[in-house]
């Protein structure tokens, strides 16, 4: 580990993290986790020896760590030895008729095309449909510009020097319990490298939504924006996803060099479980970006509607002078969902600035916590932070909690934090209903208004999906 990485590690306290995961249906090998399983997994993936050794090293670190319990979350003990860490593809349903009608109804509501529905539901598709060829076309175009966009498994083989330089540089394997676990057993994920001065012309991943699915429960993503480059990356999608794997522990690392900008948008809609919280996904994610160079910028936007348990804190380490970090989040918890999510903004460089806009919506028995750290180091002359964390409660059985940590060691820095908690006001509701809008639509209208600032930060196509998703999620929460 070089000096810089050590410094970052020192600054970023370990008890607390970020990250993310995606999914799919898979079948299992023998459950349990040990060195043999990891070697087997690494071999199956055809990885070089150095990668296998990294995984083993991470496994040893993980063994010594304790699962964190500080978050405002209640869930049963997870038995890590009962989980399968290598899975072969499962037998797929033959047609949509075999798929849960509830899911089909959601697809319909969200306006997802039939072919895409099939893929999402894991139906075996014989004919090569459009997205694959579109995908190939775009890949060619990106290649011409020098942009590398491939799976992390492919990158380990094809671009070992980039992987060795950057993987674990933002989220060290010892960062936290779930990051260590991911480092040992990560299945697959995305790798992006944008060369100097290149502005990536596409929203990455939208077209690859379907293909990118087979990454499993321990996803690992690494995005590097070289000097003066720009990339916007979208992860997840609004369609509800079923997954037999209850535990998800993803890691995302972003690196923005001098004058570079990375925009990372997420829609997360994993299966939330039933009204008692049974069967939902546990999503423990470590996401972190480092603004390594001057004038660099990292922006996280997330819409979190799924999972039984969400534990994620997409963060920015603002190392370069004048670098900028942003976090825009909408998190909805209904049914028996619990979310403990927020961000960490670590100001190290001069004139660094960060903005946090978090909107939490709780309905039914949902528990929604914002947890955010703003840390201004003594070196961060003239640093600025502004945070706004608002919570909306719908119904009297849910909970909304705000836990900011605001630390400043620099007298010229400015931190400003505001938070409000309220329910939808009766006057607002009455006003809209008096104008002939039914209650459910009125609530949805108010919720959209409440989230507007965040949704406005999503790429256009994603924003439309997010809107429909909000409506769908809120259905049945009112009254």
């Amino acid at each position, binding site marked *: 580990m070089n000096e810089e990485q050590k410094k970052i590690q020192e600054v970023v306290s370990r008890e607390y993290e970020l990250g993310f995961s995606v999914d799919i249906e898979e079948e299992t090998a023998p459950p349990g986790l040990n060195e043999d399983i990891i070697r087997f997994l690494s071999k199956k993936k055809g990885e070089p020896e150095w990668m296998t050794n990294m995984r083993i090293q991470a496994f040893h670190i993980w063994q010594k760590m304790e699962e964190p319990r500080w978050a405002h979350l209640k869930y049963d003990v997870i038995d890590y030895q009962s989980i399968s860490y290598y899975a072969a593809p499962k037998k797929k349903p033959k047609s949509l008729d075999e798929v849960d009608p509830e899911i089909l109804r959601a697809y319909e509501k969200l306006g997802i095309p039939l072919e895409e529905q099939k893929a999402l539901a894991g139906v075996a598709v014989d004919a090569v449909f459009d997205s694959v060829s579109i995908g190939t076309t775009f890949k060619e175009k990106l290649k011409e510009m020098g942009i590398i966009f491939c799976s992390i498994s492919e990158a380990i083989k094809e671009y070992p020097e980039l992987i060795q330089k950057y993987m674990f540089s933002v989220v060290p394997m010892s960062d936290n319990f779930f990051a260590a676990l991911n480092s040992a057993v990560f299945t697959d994920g995305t790798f992006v490298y944008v060369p100097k001065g290149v502005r990536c012309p596409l929203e990455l991943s939208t077209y690859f939504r379907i293909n990118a699915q087979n990454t499993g429960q321990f996803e690992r993503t690494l995005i590097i924006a070289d000097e003066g480059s720009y990339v916007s990356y979208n992860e997840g999608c609004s369609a509800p996803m079923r997954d037999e794997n209850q535990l998800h522990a993803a890691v995302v690392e972003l690196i923005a060099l001098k004058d570079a900008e990375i925009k990372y948008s997420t829609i997360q809609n994993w299966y939330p479980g039933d009204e008692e919280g049974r069967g939902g996904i546990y999503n423990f994610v470590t996401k972190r970006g480092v603004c390594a160079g001057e004038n660099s910028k990292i922006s996280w936007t997330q819409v979190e509607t799924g999972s039984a348990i969400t534990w994620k804190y997409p963060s920015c380490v603002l190392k370069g002078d004048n670098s900028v970090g942003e976090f825009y989040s909408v998190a909805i918890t209904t049914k028996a969902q619990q979310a403990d999510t927020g961000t960490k903004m670590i100001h190290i460089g001069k004139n660094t600035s960060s903005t946090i806009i978090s909107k939490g919506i709780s309905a039914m028995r949902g528990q929604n916590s914002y947890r955010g750290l703003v840390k201004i180091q003594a070196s961060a002359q003239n640093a600025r932070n502004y945070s706004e964390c608002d919570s909306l409660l719908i119904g*009297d059985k849910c909970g909304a909690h705000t836990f900011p940590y*605001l630390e400043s060691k*620099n*007298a010229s*820095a*400015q931190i400003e934090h505001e938070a409000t908690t309220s*329910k939808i006001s009766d006057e607002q509701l009455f006003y809209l209903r008096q104008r002939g809008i039914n209650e459910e639509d009125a609530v949805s209208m108010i919720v959209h208004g409440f989230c507007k600032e965040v949704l406005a930060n999503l790429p256009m196509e994603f924003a439309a999906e997010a809107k429909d998703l909000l409506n769908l999620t809120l259905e049945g929460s009112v009254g």
Partner: protein
Amino acid sequence: MRELVLSKMDLNSILNLSTKDKTKATAAVALSHLGLPSKKTEHYRYFDITQLLSKNLNLYQPVAQKADQNEKLVIEDGAIASFPSDLKIDVKDEIDIDKEHFDQIYYINHIITPNVITIEIDKDIELEVVHRFSKDGVILPYRLGIAVKNGAKVTLYEDFEDKNIKESLIFYGWDISLEKDSYFELVRVQNELKRSYSMVASHFVKADESSEFSIKSFDIGEGKICHNLKVDLLKDAKCDAKHLVYTDKEAVRANVIKINHKGKNAKTEQNARHVLKDKSRAIFDALIKVEHSGIGASAHQNNKSILLNDKAYMISKPQLEIYIDELEASHGSTTGQIDPEEVFYLRTRGINEEEAKKMIVLGFMREIIEEVKDEEKKDEIMRRFEEIYNIDLIE
């Protein structure tokens, strides 16, 4: 006196220090659930409790002495030294304590304190309490209980004096019970000009129906001092909390406050101001929790901090934990330097930079000091802040 290094003791040996009486048994049960405080204890995250507990100190048990009559209640090294003649004061083995306190030291303090000084008040009074410390190198634990009866209105001024003692660690705290319709105002001034002792204080307030608890705390200067306060508000109860903290040198001053809305229509107004100088550290860790039964709550919280120089370290944690939709709640926190626009404005009126800054900082602090109703006390507190601020400017 025997030596007590709390960090070297396990839970059982601390629990074994407790006697059989009800209070200590209750404390022991609660402590066994919480475990001992450690680096991972959330409310000690920024206040190094393990370092304090690892000191080699002798356990000093307060000794009852012959007490004089005086206008003030004076507590010297944990025992009553003097008290007003009309005050109903007693020393008891057992009192009711909080079974759900968040702080381990609250229970440890109860376990190692032989008995509790209790005061019962059933009329409207003002009371001055002075804590005096004279012992070097000891752990001094003591506790105070106060019961304010139906409808009584009480203002209590609390102050601290010490004979430049060295290395001592003081555990103390109030258990305050407010009966229906009563009013209790606590004005605490803790002015540590020289770093002489460390203190972990842990308080509990139970505010019954329609009662009001008001705290105005003024922390000035040095020392390692943490006040943990938990307030339970029942139906229609009110909590008015104002905190002013001015730290300098290597001070570490913490206010950890958890206000719990248990009954409906309770109200909380909390305002804090911090001014930090030198290498000092201030921690404001304040949670307002509205339970499902706390319908109709009104809860507002605000903290503003000014750092006078770069080595100072402010930690602000305003928190809301809400389990009901029928309420209004908000919080805000700002940390920064003296506003340059304000300084400039005053300078364009001919006031020099240093004077302008001083006026602005004192004005910033005055907003809290103005909350003290008694004019004489208010001036006295203002004077103390002016004094320390002037001393600093000369340096």
